[in-house]
Structures are given as C-alpha cells and as structure tokens.
C-alpha cells in the first residue's frame, strides 16, 4: 500500500513536505458487561499519503469517517496507535519535547468555527500576537509591527487590532484565525472546515484569501472538508475516507471527472448542483446509514451501501476481503480500494456539462 502511495506522490511532486505512513488510531470504549475483551472504535486505519510543498491535499468524507482525527494525529494533538508522520524529514512522533515545540511553529491549524476559537476577552491584536509571545519571537514595537503586517496580509484594517472578537463578522473572524495561524510563518496549515460556518459570499472571500496566501508564501495545506465544491476549487489532490480508511486518492480533476471508487461516485452524485435543469433522481442507496465504526462490516466496509455490490449480485469477495488501494486503469496517480475498480470507473458516467 505504501508502495502505491509512493508512486502516487512521485508523480505529484518531488519536494515532499509531509508524509503519513500507516497511520492508525483506535479509541478504547471500555468493556461490555461480563466481557473480557475491550471494544474499540477504529477511527483511523492504516492511512498513508504524501503532500508536496506548496500543495493542497483535501481529506473528504462523511461525518465520522476519521478525517478530523487524521489531522489531529499529524499535529500530535492526539497520540497515534500506530504508524508514522514525517514532516520536513523529521519523525513527528519521536521528537523530544523541545524539538516538538520548534516543530509546532511550522505546523498550524485554522478551525471551523471562528466564534469559538477566539478568546472573547482578548483583543484580536493580542490573539494574533499570542503565538509570537508564547514562542518568544518578538515583543514591543516589533511585535505590533508584525501583527499589523499580518492584518494587512489577510485583508483587515490594522487599526482594528484593539477591538474584541464580538465586533467582527464571521468572515472577518475567520480572517483573524488565519492571521493567527500565519504569524509564525508556518510551512503547513491544517484547515479544518475553514469555510463551513460562513455565508456563501463571505466564503468566497476566505477561499480566495487561502489561495492567494498559498501562491505568495508556498504554504502547504491539509484541507478537511465535506464541501466538495470548495475542495475542487482549492486542492491539488483529494483523499476520500470511509470509516477510517482511505478509499480513493487522486489528483483533483481526475477525481471529479472520473471518480473510481463507488463511494466517491456516490458522494459526487449526492451533491446538489446550482442548476435547476440538472435535478437528479433520488439517490438509490441500498443502505443509507453509515455502519457503526465499532462493528465494521466484514470485507470491504462499504459493501452494505455499495450500488455496484448490489448490481453484481453480491459477490462474496466484497464481504470477505478488504480491498487494498490499487492503481485505476493503470494510472498510478489515481488509486482506489475496490475489488472491481476498473468496472466501477467504466460504470461512471459524468452528467452532461451545464
């Protein structure tokens, strides 16, 4: 599996900033009454990928698929059960405390909700300056200058530094969150649903800002999002997760034009398109709820919901064997974990362009 991830990454970029290998996280749930074996939730299971410098990889999937957990593991905000993360050549999980501290300056995060991620009692200027103070990287006038510079960079008036978060709109607050993430000059930012809480018109402003920043400063993003429109617009590569596992990894345009995994196809079909001429029929889901991650289905975890499985008269291999990621019709840049991937990709017909 790592082998395939290698090929994939090689075709993407030579300058690898972040590499994730076999990342796994299990949460123990405690035991059932009278049972000796503990139960686990497999939040993340054997996830591997690479992100080139200055590029954006998006992790997508339904709620509970493990995409947020992956980002927390990479930042070492949660301990991983297994696997490793290599960031700028360093093994993140093995770093001693003081080196971790230095590393944290290079990796930042922007959260979904700009309302709850800012301290209401702190002026926004102080909030943006805080990382500099914590990492002892400036004080006095220099600090103020740096903060003012960042305010300008994200499109806010530096004079607003002394105001409090409640005086700003949602979009402005998200800009403050972005300024705070940028203040230490990071190489890598996790954007966890950065635009989900914002209105459409403001969302476009923030998306444009993230894109401009990447162009200017060569920042690498890991985007966590369920909004596939934003994902298509912002990312170079997309990784689709289902119940803790990677089911497809591909360059963005390939994924949207020719999704290989039946789950990716289902996700894309489910999204309403702002064009009344293209209304779709209701989705034909055999089973519409995601199975519980505590009791994963045997074999391919997607088989109970898979239209192809139903169509092919329920082949036993889907129930019995976990499919590995494999290249799609010989193209190493696109990998998908489906026993019938070539059939699946041929099966997908793109809706006519509007």
């Amino acid at each position, binding site marked *: 599996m790592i082998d395939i991830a290698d090929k994939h990454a090689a075709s993407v970029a030579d300058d690898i900033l972040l590499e994730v290998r076999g990342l796994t996280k299990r949460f123990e749930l405690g035991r059932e009454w009278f049972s000796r074996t503990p139960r686990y939730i497999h939040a993340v299971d054997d996830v591997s990928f690479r992100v080139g410098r200055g590029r954006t990889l998006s992790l997508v999937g339904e709620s509970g698929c493990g995409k947020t957990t992956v980002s927390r593991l990479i930042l070492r905000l949660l301990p991983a059960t297994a696997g490793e993360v290599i960031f700028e050549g360093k093994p993140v999980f093995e770093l001693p405390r003081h080196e971790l501290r230095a590393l944290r300056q290079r990796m930042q995060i922007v959260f979904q909700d700009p309302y709850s991620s800012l301290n209401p009692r702190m002026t926004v200027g102080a909030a943006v300056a805080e990382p500099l103070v914590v990492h002892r990287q400036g004080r006095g006038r220099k600090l103020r200058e740096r903060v003012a510079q960042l305010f300008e960079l994200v499109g806010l008036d530096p004079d607003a530094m002394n105001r409090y978060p409640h005086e700003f709109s949602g979009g402005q607050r998200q800009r403050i969150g972005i300024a705070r993430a940028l203040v230490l000059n990071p190489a890598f930012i996790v954007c966890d649903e950065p635009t989900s809480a914002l209105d459409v018109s403001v969302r*476009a402003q923030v998306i444009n800002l993230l894109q401009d920043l990447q162009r200017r400063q060569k920042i690498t993003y890991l985007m966590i999002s369920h909004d596939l429109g934003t994902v298509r617009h912002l990312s170079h590569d997309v990784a689709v997760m289902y119940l803790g596992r990677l089911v497809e990894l591909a360059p963005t345009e390939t994924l949207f034009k020719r999704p290989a995994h039946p789950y990716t196809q289902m996700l894309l079909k489910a999204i309403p*398109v702002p064009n009344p001429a293209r209304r779709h029929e209701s989705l034909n889901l055999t089973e519409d*709820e995601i199975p519980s991650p505590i009791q994963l289905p045997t074999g391919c975890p997607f088989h109970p919901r898979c239209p192809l499985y139903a169509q092919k008269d329920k082949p036993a291999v889907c129930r019995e064997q976990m499919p590995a990621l494999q290249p799609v019709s010989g193209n190493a840049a696109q990998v998908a974990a489906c026993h019938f991937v070539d059939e699946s990709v041929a099966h997908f017909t793109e809706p006519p*362009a509007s």
Partner: protein
Amino acid sequence: MSEAPQATAEITSPELNQPLLEIVDLHTYFHSERGVARVVDGVTFDVPRGKTVALVGESGCGKSVTSLSILRLIPSPPGEIVSGAIRFEGRDLATLDAEELRTIRGGDIAMIFQEPATSLNPVFTIGDQLIEAIRLHRDLPLHEAQTEVKQALTAVSLNEPERRMRQYPHELSGGMKQRVMIAMALACRPKLLIADEPTTALDVTIQARVLGLLRHNQAELGMSILLVTHDLGVVAEMADDVVVMYAGKVVERSTAVELFAGPLHPYSRGLLSSVVRIDRPQRRLHAIEGHVPSPTNWPEGCRFKTRCPLAAEKCNAEPPLAEIQPGRFSACWFADQLVGLPPDEELTRS
C-alpha cells in the same frame, strides 16, 4: 350536513385558484436596548398550492424570522409582528387567537427545523411523540394512531418502524432524527410544510435522501413547501419559485429556472457567482465585498448599495420591487439592464 354539497362547494370555491399562502407587506421587528431591529421589513410573496417556494439569503437577511412569523413563533417580547397580513386559505394568521392558532400549527401547517435533535423530546420514545402529535389533531383511537405512525415512518424510508417507535431520540443518527421529524410533520397531512434549513446539518448523502423524500411526499400529498435555505444547490434541486431576501427585504422574486439562468438583481447575481461549483473547475471565485449591514442600522435607500458594483446616486432612494418581466420581480433601479445578461458576467457601471 351531507357530503355532496360540501364537495361541490369545494370545487367551485374561488379559493382554489388563489395561492395557499399570501404574505403581504410583513414587518417583524425586534426591540432591544440598542434600538429597533427591523429584521423583516416589508416582505411580500405567495406560496401557490402544490408548489415549492424557496426563501433564500445569507444569515441575518430575515428569512428565518419570516418563516417563524407565519406560525407566529416569534418570541414576544422582544419580537413583534408590527404590520402586514399572513393569509392562509384566506384567513389572516396574524390576527388569530391562541386557540385557533393551535389547530393550525402542526395541522394544516407543519414545520421542520435545522436541528432535529432539539425538536425531539429526549425522555419520550419516538413512537410516543409521533402518536401524541397525531392525536392532537386527529380524533383517533390509540391503535389506529399506532398504525398511522408505522405508515408515516415507512413513508420516510426508515427501516424497522416498530423498533424505531420503541427507541429514544439519542439512539438515532442525525439523518434518522430528521426523517422522524418529517414523518411527524407529514402525519397530519399538512397543506403547507415550512422547512427551515432542513438538511444543513446532514451529510450530503443523507441530504440527497431527505430531499428526495420531501419531493416524493409532496407529490403524494399535494402539499406546498416553503423551503428556507442558504444553499443554492438545494434551491435548484427543489424549488419552483425563489424569493431572494437581503437586509429584511425581498430583492428578487422569480421562477427557479429563470433565476438561475440570469438573475435580475445584483445581489442575487453576486450570490450565484460566489457559489463554489462542483460541476466545473473555476479560476477565481467572485466574492461580494463587505458584509451584511446590521438590522438596527440598515443603509438608507437601497440596502445593497454599500456592496453593489452598480451603486449610483439614484440608489439613495429606495427601489420598489417592480415587475421587470412577466412574473419576475426585482428591487433594483438598474434591473432593466440586467435582462438577458448571463449569470457569470461581471457587473460594471456603464
């Protein structure tokens, strides 16, 4: 009275040609220490029988308060329906007393909200809550109500309806809870369903399922839907007519097909072109600059002028919501110039 005359009365009734719901110049204000927030400030539109009307706009535009005003669910004080009429089958809901309102709420007009978890009572089973809702409006013996509930749950594609009835809300996923809410709303065969962001909290796959269900049940029951949403994808998927709101006012009214083909108000154009498209790659997103003004302090004249690329001297006077083309209304002085313009074309002052 025998049944026959009633039936003829229904057929000949002029009401059938009238819209099911007419909102006429509705003003809902909120009073606070900081002044009066004119959240809904002169809103007029119709919901025809059997059709879906989408009420669209960004947060703070007054779309939710408009929908809550219909069933008089505005907390008062601080809220107040200051003026306007809400005619439902000819009766003005704004003047009904509490008793009359109760028979309409959940009966002829049902409502579902964004967060199904907060609308269900955690200490009663799903079955109990549905049975209560049905028997409140229909005089049915318990076992008949139970059968109805089973049917209602099946109609929203919930598997094992008997087991669901014995379960408590926390045992269901978000998508299932929303379907229970829809089942509850539809159980009394409402003529109008008000759905306020019904799928915003759900995953796309479940959203597709819920929207499909709403459409299917609408066809079955012949009900009207007032869909309140900010998601233009959902609007395109569901709506016959669209009402676009900005800063407490209706800025554009049109059929969905015509609106998406070329909006006649700069704000609707901005909204449409700032949507990130899933169906095609884009280079740079068009963003509406600035942000929505505060309801205690709307700009004078046209309320969109502070963000509008076309803003001119004229816009200091308030533009009326005028019929620009048959059935298409826009509150913009320059709406004539927008006719026939493709939706992506950037606006500049000529």
